Every structure is written in C-alpha cells, then in structure tokens.
C-alpha cells in the first residue's frame, strides 16, 4: 500500500491554546479511506485543516513538523496553496451548494480555472455525479436549482463538485452529520466507490460510522495520536485501553 501523505512530527497550537496537535506522525495510504476519530477537541479537524492549509486562515500560535504529499512538504511557505487545494479537495459538515443550477455547481470550479470546452464540462458533470452516486437522481433535471435538492443530495453534490476538479485527496469533515440514515448510507456507498481512485480522509460523525467506513483508523485524544491501525483491527480488538474505552462508549 503506497502512502499518499506522510505526516511527520506535526505539532500545532492555536493562539488561545484550545486545541492542539502533539507530535503527530502518520502515513495516509492511497486508494483507501482513512478515518480520524475521537472525542471533540482531540485534534482531528485541526489535522484535516492542515492537510489543505485551511489553518492558514486560523489563529495559529505555533506549528512545526512536515506534511509530505507526493514528496512535497505542503507546509513549506513556498507551496502554491491554490494548486494544493485543487489537489486536496474538502467537503464540510453542512453542505454548501452555490445558488445556481445543479450543473453549474459542478462546472463552476472548472470554469474559474479557465475550462471553456463544453464537452469537457459536460463530461465532468456526468463523471463526478456518477462517482458521487447522485447521477441517477438528478440526470433529468441538471438545470434545476441545487438548493431544491434534499440535504443528502446536496451533500453528494458537494462531493461531486469536489471530484469535478479531479483532486487526488478528498478530506471530509463529518459529511453526514446532518443527514438521515438513507442519505448517510448513500454518501458512504459513494465513498467506497470513489476510494478506488482517490485517497480519502474522513472525520466521521460517530464511532459506528468510523467502524463502517474505515480501511484505516487513527484515534485522537487531546491532540495525541493514541492508536493507528486497520479499521478491522481497531474496532474489534484495539490495543490501547483509551481506544477501547472510547469505542465502547465509556467516555466521549
């Protein structure tokens, strides 16, 4: 299994000291779903935000360590952040659709980047909607406003929008926290499909979702990486007592 991202001794502290990462080292494999889970304030979202430099916008007091993506240290100040974010897409907890048609939601990013060829745009719409398991539901109404879609459909549209730019890594921060079980299972099914071509890093909204989706899972507690293992191991026989206590609901 090739490692797409290698995190080396990453430490981070915010100005107000609320959340931090303490000396995290972790390899994220290609073509797999890696889940970052643990109680709130453990550092999982902070780590996710480091992976496409969203923390540039936060009040960070200190940050050290390296994050290698295809051999390039993305924390290097010289890194082209726009290019990085194209390579590393992100989907947030609440779907944010643009106030335009379903089709335009997908093509917007590509058009901003200068893609004008209609055939390319149409191809991207179909491909990314199929990958996000939304195509069958919307193919006959691509010109309808995206806002008319259900919450679950909107979230899959956000996944599709991110896929349209052909990123290599997709970060998802509790992408199904506001969705009903059926929409949740559709999003999860689409993740299983798209992981064949992408590296996926997911912060799940529950331990059960972590167990359902994880090829690999990293348990974070108070800024520390407690345990990192294959999903099938960590949710049946974790080695660290703190992981055991958390996944069995003794705290968190």
């Amino acid at each position: 299994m090739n490692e797409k991202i290698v995190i080396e001794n990453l430490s981070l502290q915010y100005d107000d000291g609320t959340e931090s990462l303490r000396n995290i080292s972790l390899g994220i494999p290609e073509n797999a779903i890696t889940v970052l889970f643990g109680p709130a304030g453990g550092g999982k979202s902070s780590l996710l935000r480091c992976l496409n430099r969203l923390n540039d916008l936060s009040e960070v007091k200190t940050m050290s360590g390296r994050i290698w993506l295809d051999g390039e240290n993305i924390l290097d100040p010289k890194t082209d952040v726009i290019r990085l974010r194209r390579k590393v897409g992100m989907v947030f907890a609440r779907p944010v659709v643009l106030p335009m048609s379903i089709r335009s939601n997908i093509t917007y990013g590509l058009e901003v980047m200068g893609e004008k060829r209609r055939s390319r745009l149409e191809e991207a719409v179909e491909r990314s909607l199929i990958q996000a398991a939304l195509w069958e539901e919307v193919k006959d109404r691509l010109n309808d406003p995206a806002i008319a879609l259900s919450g679950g459909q909107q979230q899959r549209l956000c996944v599709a929008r991110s896929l349209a730019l052909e990123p290599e890594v997709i970060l998802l921060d509790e992408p199904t926290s506001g969705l009903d079980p059926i929409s949740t299972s559709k999003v999860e099914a689409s993740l299983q499909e798209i992981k064949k071509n992408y590296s996926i890093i997911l912060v799940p909204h529950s331990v059960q979702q972590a167990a359902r989706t994880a090829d690999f899972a990293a348990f974070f507690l108070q800024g520390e990486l407690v345990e990192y293992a294959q999903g099938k191991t960590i949710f049946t026989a974790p080695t660290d007592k703190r992981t055991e206590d958390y996944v069995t609901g003794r705290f968190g």
Partner: protein
Amino acid sequence: MLRKNFEFEIQHLKDEIILLGSLVEKNVIDAVDALKKRDMAASERVIELDQQINNKRFELENQVMIVIATQQPLAHDLRLLASYFEVISELERMGDYAKGIGVINIRIGEQPLLKPLVDIPRMAEKGASMLHRALLAFVNEDANTARSIPQEDDDVDNLYIQVYRELMTFVMEDPKNIERANWLLWVAHNLERFSDRVTNICERTVFIVTGELTEIDSDPDHKNH
C-alpha cells in the same frame, strides 16, 4: 447513560447464560443418574428439560441480537456479544448429549446394564464441574482460569479410554454383549464430547479478554483416540 443501559443488558444476559448452563449441568448429571438407576420416568424428564434448553437458546440468541442491533457494540463489547452466540449454541449442543443419554436409557428398556456404572458417572461429574467453572470464568472474564480448565479434559479422556477398554473385554468374552456394550459406549462418547465443548467455551473467554482466537489444546496425544 447509554453505557448504563448496555451494562444492564449485559448483566441480564450473563445471568441468563448462567441459568442455561445450570440447566445443562443438571441435565447431564440427572441423565446419567437415571441410567444408573434405570429410572425411565427420570429419563423422560431429562428429555423434557432438553426441550426447555432448546427454547431458552433461541430466546437468548434473540436477546443477544437485539442488544447488537440497538447498542451497535465495538471492540470488547462486540467480542463479548459474538461470544455469547457461540457459547449459547455450545450449551444447547451439550444439552443434546444429556438428552441422548436419556434416550439411550429408554432404548435399553428392560435389558439389564452390561455392568454397574462406575466411570461413566465420574465422567459426567467431571464434565459438569468443568462446565460450571468454565461458565463462571466466562461471565467473570477470567482468562487464566479459562486457560487452565481444558487441561482437565485429559481426565475425562482417560476415563473414556478406560470405559472403552472395559467394554471391549465384555465384547471379547461374548459377542452377544455387543449391543449392550455399544449402548454404554455411546453414553461415554456423549460425555467425552460434552467436556470437549467446555474447551470451546474457555476459548471464547480468552477471546473476549485478549481478542485472540486460539485453540486451547489440552493434550495433543489424546486427540487421536
């Protein structure tokens, strides 16, 4: 709060498994006792109790399934509930051995036993005692005790070999003894299998505690008999 509910349900299941185990334990002792005394009515009761054991097994499996569905357990809790399935079904099969002995007594009917029973009741007592302690270790998650109990299976195996040899001498003396020897050999075989299954319960205890699924071998030399 959720954890409290879960622990309450687990405690309830543990109590029920102990109850099921005690029915099986009682039935194997009663089955051999009925054979020894040639008490047909007692054997009928053994067969009836086995029906209760079978019903209890389905009832408990259903309860375990409900806990899995509602609590979605992971890690230790998942191993625990998966092991409950296994142990419940082991107990049901052990109950079948007791019932089998009850059926044999009735089938022997008016014929006298080939010989007075000495080692066969010992096998039953040993097996019942192993089961009793194995189930306590199971609910208390005592892996050390669980690892030690299967060693005692050798005692049962040795008694079985002894019974076998003794019955063979009767057969060699007079081939007309074959049928009556065969009935008792069948009883001894049931008891030998009964204590083998105690080992399976012990293996589940180790699994719950350590997460490792391994066979506990009492004495490999005896496995070929």
